[in-house]
């Protein structure tokens, strides 16, 4: 067993998550804010009597787009970094003969698919002006349910892959586990109710760009986290990494 304390990796995971949140903020600010503004302009032009943000909004648009967005993305990054570090603690040395850096990338890639991509493809993000405020409880419940389901199915696929690996080898076992995961996700997609509350006259291009911005933000978070955490984790897990690397450069 590895003598390292999970605390050491957790602290580094949250640090890497903070960095990932910062990168996410930059991407969200550059790619996303113009889409949010465009959607709010449509919302206000469409129905001036609507109650959202009309009467003395408690937070101005300028604050929402900077400090508010920054708080959201940084806290989101720290929280996901902590969770990913815990998953890494479990995955290290258990998913094959991978070193800390490769394990970190596999974990962050897996969490991107399980926590963001799979739920997103069923319940994609929506800009302001899309979505009926009266259905927010139902939409939030379904979204959280989809994330939980996706996480459970990913864990099940991982267990299946590990069971099959001794007989079939890692490559074939991974393919079979992935196919099983896709099939299970397809069944989940088919059984859960769909949500489409996009107004008929809302520009399709704006929805598309907004959703691409969401994917770009999520991809930024997990790429940054995976790379940064891999370096930080390797430093504490293999302090002798530097001399070994010079003795035996990659074969």
């Amino acid at each position: 067993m590895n003598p390292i304390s999970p605390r050491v990796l957790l602290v580094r995971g949250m640090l890497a998550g903070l960095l990932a949140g910062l990168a996410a903020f930059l991407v969200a600010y550059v790619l996303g804010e113009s889409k949010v503004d465009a959607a709010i302009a449509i919302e206000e032009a469409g129905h001036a009597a609507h109650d959202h943000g009309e009467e003395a909004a408690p937070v101005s648009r300028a604050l929402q787009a900077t400090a508010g967005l920054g708080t959201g993305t940084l806290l989101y990054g720290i929280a996901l970094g902590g969770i990913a570090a815990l998953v890494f603690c479990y995955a290290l040395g258990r998913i094959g003969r991978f070193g800390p850096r490769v394990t970190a990338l596999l974990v962050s890639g897996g969490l991107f698919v399980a926590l963001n991509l799979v739920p997103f493809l069923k319940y994609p993000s929506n800009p302001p002006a899309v979505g009926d405020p009266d259905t927010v409880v139902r939409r939030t419940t379904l979204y959280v349910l989809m994330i939980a389901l996706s996480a459970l199915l990913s864990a099940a696929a991982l267990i299946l892959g590990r069971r099959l690996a001794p007989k079939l080898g890692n490559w074939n076992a991974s393919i079979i586990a992935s196919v099983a995961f896709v099939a299970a996700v397809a069944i989940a997609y088919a059984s859960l109710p769909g949500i489409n509350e996009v107004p008929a006259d809302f520009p399709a291009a704006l929805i598309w760009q907004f959703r691409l911005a969401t994917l770009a933000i999520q991809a930024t978070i997990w790429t940054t986290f995976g790379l940064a955490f891999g370096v930080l984790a390797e430093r504490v897990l293999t302090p002798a990494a530097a001399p070994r690397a010079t003795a035996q450069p990659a074969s």
Partner: protein
Amino acid sequence: MAHSAVPTTAPAVAPISLSALAPWAVFVGVLMLVLLYLVGAEQGATALFEGDTVHEWMHDGRHLLGFPCH
């Protein structure tokens, strides 16, 4: 054997024992989920605090990170 990227001569990294990990996983896991709830859903679907300041403050982040907002 069919493992791919890593040569078989690479030293295996020892796993961390589950009993050492469990208390951290439970405590920090719950803490991180509370944090995600505050960013993603507080004063949206449900509310612990009155008003809508948290909702409005997190507004852009919620939309762009993919949470249902309003």
